[in-house]
């Protein structure tokens, strides 16, 4: 059943559940963080509207910095601003930020250990028609390998808002990952969020498989979990917003309790969230696993739903992977 303590939306399974892109949560969260701390600044590389950085610009024009199409410079200017006492959020598409400016992030933000918040928009194939060039599928891997870096992939716009506010307060580097397309807003203002803490969405009495997911696919994981439960297959659905540092306790407990794990991410299977879970469970509690992710491929043009289905990332594929794992394919 649904975890009551998650305080999910009353419409969580309704057809008319509200939908919004998680980047909206960035826009709202940045404004709230800006109100709470006058040192919060937002830098953007010629994408004010689509990244929602423009929402902050409207509220705090004097604290908004336009870099032009120069993502490398954005990262290092932000590093300098952080050294001078600011809390910079740098926003662009994830393919450029951290895709293009990786080394600047590595040296001047991560190794330098200054509180710059890297905001990668349009991550995953849900970018849709723009195609492979703009569908970032390697960013979680790139960022989680960096020492000093926190990595967060929120489930929806509401959690994204909270993640931005929380990230503003850590005093350390962070990477936050957002999507372009509108996805169900299934968490609420009451849903707990803490960096490093996973959230149980659904738990059956006698779980046989744990579905661990990150980002907006956690909603699909929840749909798959509910369907499996209805078929008499006990599940745990654990949303893991913080990919680094992982919630060792919650993930180990889910693996112990269910004995099998499926990981879900809109990212390459290699090197991403699933890999992080394997690394953790290999050390604490190895169990049979399946991975939902993109299998060593680039994306392509199409509608988000088509692409998620094509790459095997939707609820139906999650359900299928879970059944296969327990031998009930």
């Amino acid at each position, binding site marked *: 059943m649904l975890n009551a303590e998650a305080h999910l939306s009353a419409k969580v399974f309704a057809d008319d559940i509200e939908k919004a892109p998680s980047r909206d949560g960035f826009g709202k969260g940045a404004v709230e963080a800006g109100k709470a701390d006058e040192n919060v600044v937002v830098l953007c590389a010629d994408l004010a509207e689509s990244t929602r950085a423009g929402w902050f610009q409207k509220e705090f024009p004097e604290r908004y910095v336009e870099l032009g199409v120069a993502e*490398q410079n954005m990262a290092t200017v932000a590093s300098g601003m952080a050294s*001078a006492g600011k809390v910079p959020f740098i926003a662009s598409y994830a393919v450029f930020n951290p895709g293009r400016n990786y080394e600047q992030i590595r040296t001047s933000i991560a190794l330098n250990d200054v509180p710059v918040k890297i905001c990668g928009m349009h991550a995953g194939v849900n970018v849709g028609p723009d195609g492979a060039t703009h569908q970032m599928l390697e960013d979680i891997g790139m960022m989680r390998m960096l020492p000093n870096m926190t990595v967060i992939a929120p489930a929806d716009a509401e959690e994204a808002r909270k993640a931005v506010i929380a990230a503003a307060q850590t005093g350390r580097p962070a990477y936050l990952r957002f999507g372009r397309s509108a996805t169900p807003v299934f968490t609420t203002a009451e849903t707990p969020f803490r960096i490093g803490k996973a959230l149980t969405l659904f738990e059956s009495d006698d779980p046989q498989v744990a579905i661990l997911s990150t980002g907006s696919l956690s909603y699909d994981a929840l749909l798959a979990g509910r369907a499996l439960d209805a078929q008499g297959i006990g599940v745990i659905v654990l949303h893991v917003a913080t990919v680094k540092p992982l919630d060792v306790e919650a993930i180990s407990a889910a693996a112990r309790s269910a004995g099998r794990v499926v990981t879900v991410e809109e990212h390459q299977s290699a090197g991403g969230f699933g890999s992080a879970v394997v690394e953790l469970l290999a050390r604490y509690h190895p169990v049979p696993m399946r991975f939902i992710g993109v299998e060593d491929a680039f994306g392509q043009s199409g509608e988000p739903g088509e692409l998620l289905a094509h790459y095997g990332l939707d609820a139906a594929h999650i359900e299928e992977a879970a059944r296969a794992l327990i031998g009930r394919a």
Partner: protein
Amino acid sequence: MYTDRMAVPTDGKLALLEKTAESVRETIVRSLVAAGSGHTAGALGLADVFTAFYFHILTHDPGDPESEERDRLVLSNGHVCPALYATMAHAGYFPIDECLTLRKFGSRLQGHPERALLPGLETTSGPLGEGLSQAAGMAYAFRMDGRKNRVYALMSDGEQEEGSTWEAAMFAGKNRLSNLIAVIDRNGIQIDGVTEDVMPLEPLAEKYRAFNWLVLDADGNDIAAFIAAVDEAKAVQDKPTLIIARTIPGKGVPEIESDYRWHGEVPTVEEGERFLQELRTAAGQVPQGRA
């Protein structure tokens, strides 16, 4: 606390600065011999510039490296850090003997500077093309807050080949960051040879002018001339200033001066002894900076 001195140094002060620069050079040679690897030419060439900064130009306090009022010197070409470390040590940030730990396991003096390890470093650097933008970010933030701190960015000439340098130049020009003063160590060499062979940079001054910078030219091995250029830059109100500081790589050791092969080489123990001897005899007799 050293404070912001606008005045040209007196003759007595200048002689002291020049003497200090010679001591800094000796420390650079000693530390590179001890390290067994590192970058000699650029470090020796910049001893005068670093001495001018830490003993005359910068507002800073070795006893309070985090002081809010301090100016910021961002070293972009981190590989010349033996010169930075030696100058900081002579200025009192840490014992001069610690320079002999350069590049050793457990040392605060990493092969390329790491801010988190050594109080007084403003950033972690080494990968080229990143210092100017960090300095610009600091200058931008200080201006937002109405703070008077000045920000200096020290770059190599070779790193002008990095595209990111020009992104930063564009940003600083657009925002008229007059509290930012950049210095290019124009020593004319890089790892693979002479800059104008590897990738021509000239006309360098015109390029920066086109990006809305004021550009000054100075002999980077003439402390008085360099300080005068910085003073001129401080008076500018409406744009960032670049000082193209012409230096002699390997300055002070005639046998290696202007030889690009010493960019990434270090003296052996025997060479080190000879270099120290040359430094002492050459002090005060070295050729003028190339125009």
